[in-house]
């Protein structure tokens, strides 16, 4: 007979029956055997495994002391000789979801314990940890506790046994963005035509490519008066000072550079370079104003048409930018500009 899987279950203070929001400051704790939803977990595991222990931590404590809490919980897991960590499900509770993701990632990366978390796909923890952690999409309602735990167990057992996994939709987990080769019954051309015919007939079809999802952006209010506006120039076309001292990446950017231009009337081609792997930079290298219109902006400032040109240009090389990195770069630039009192931005893109 095969050995039973030793399972530890992570819960927040509420589900571990320690207390509600008033106990959210409580530090990591340990109980023998299953607690609360752990009983449903044990039921789902049936003869395959045993809930050895319940680990828990207050939502606020984890949020404020993530490192200490993780260390203590890992110590307990190692002591239990756990094979599998089941965390949550946390449904739509953000702090709980983030804790579940963090503890699953740490357990797997540092102790080699297989881990499955459960939470709603909109939970902040899902956005943060879906790439590194198997997260079953539990939906947002506690009513779905049992089916969520059942799917977490099925996936957990497969992971422990090293069984092959199906596609995320089949396993019920949030896609981790991992690509795997697979054999298809039909060649791509036939599949594409099938999809097209289904689309024309108004029938459902499923694309084989997951399109990245973008969030709704609220438009900034219009500038009422240009003559008092502070305008900044930003580009994703790869402007750098001559010689690229910061070694900005020509593609797949992870950061941006800040180029001081106070007092400059023009961008001298001898003092600037263009570093970008996504387009022919010869024309912009000849005359950087083809990428960043500093000359015109300085004139408009002197003519009083705009209030002030911001003292720095922010630049990155936008070739093959991952949406996640691009978002972070954009937010970083926006924070700088906002704190500097900039009221408007012209972004030039190649």
């Amino acid at each position, binding site marked *: 007979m095969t050995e039973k899987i030793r399972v530890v279950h992570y819960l927040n203070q509420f589900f571990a029956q320690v207390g509600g929001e008033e106990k959210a400051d409580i530090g990591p704790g340990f109980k023998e055997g299953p607690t609360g939803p752990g009983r449903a977990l044990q039921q789902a595991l049936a003869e395959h495994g045993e809930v050895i222990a319940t680990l828990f931590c207050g939502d606020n404590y984890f949020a404020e002391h993530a490192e200490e809490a993780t260390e203590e919980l890992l110590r307990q897991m190692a002591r239990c000789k756990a094979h599998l960590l089941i965390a949550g499900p946390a449904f739509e509770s953000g702090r709980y979801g983030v804790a579940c993701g963090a503890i699953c990632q740490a357990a797997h990366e540092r102790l080699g314990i297989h881990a499955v978390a459960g939470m709603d796909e909109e939970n902040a923890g899902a956005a943060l940890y879906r790439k590194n952690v198997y997260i079953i999409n539990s939906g947002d309602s506690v009513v779905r506790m049992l089916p969520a735990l059942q799917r977490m167990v099925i996936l957990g057992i497969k992971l422990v046994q090293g069984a092959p996994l199906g596609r995320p939709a089949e396993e019920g987990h949030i896609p981790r963005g991992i690509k795997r080769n697979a054999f298809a019954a039909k060649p791509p051309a036939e599949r594409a035509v099938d999809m097209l015919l289904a689309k024309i007939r108004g029938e459902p079809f499923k694309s084989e490519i997951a399109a990245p999802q*973008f*969030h*709704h*952006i609220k*438009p*900034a*209010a*219009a*500038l*009422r008066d*240009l003559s008092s*506006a502070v*305008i900044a120039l*930003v*580009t994703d*076309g790869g402007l750098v000072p001559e010689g690229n001292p910061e070694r900005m990446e020509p593609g797949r950017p992870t950061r941006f550079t800040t180029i001081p231009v106070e007092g400059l009337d023009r961008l001298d081609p001898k003092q600037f370079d263009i570093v970008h792997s996504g*387009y*022919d*930079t*010869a*024309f*912009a290298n*000849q*005359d950087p*104003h*083809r*990428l*960043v*219109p500093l*000359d*015109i*902006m300085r*004139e*408009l400032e002197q003519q009083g*048409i*705009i209030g002030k040109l911001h003292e720095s240009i922010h630049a990155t090389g936008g070739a093959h930018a991952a*949406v996640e990195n*691009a978002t972070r770069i954009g937010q970083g630039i926006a924070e700088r500009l906002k704190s500097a009192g900039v009221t*408007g*931005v*012209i*972004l*030039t*893109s*190649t």
Partner: protein
Amino acid sequence: MVQICTMIPVAKEVGSLRAMGSGGIVSPTGNPELTPEKEKEFRRDLVLRALQILKEDVRE
């Protein structure tokens, strides 16, 4: 923010709400085929249009 770019549908897709056409991929605020004087006029016109867009509300 106003974005001077070539691939406006891509800009809109990622949530760039004030996007306008540029001088091209390799010269967003220029046109190498023009004389330097004409090119600067072209750039001035682009920038003024961009600033005008900043003054207008975005219809959602």
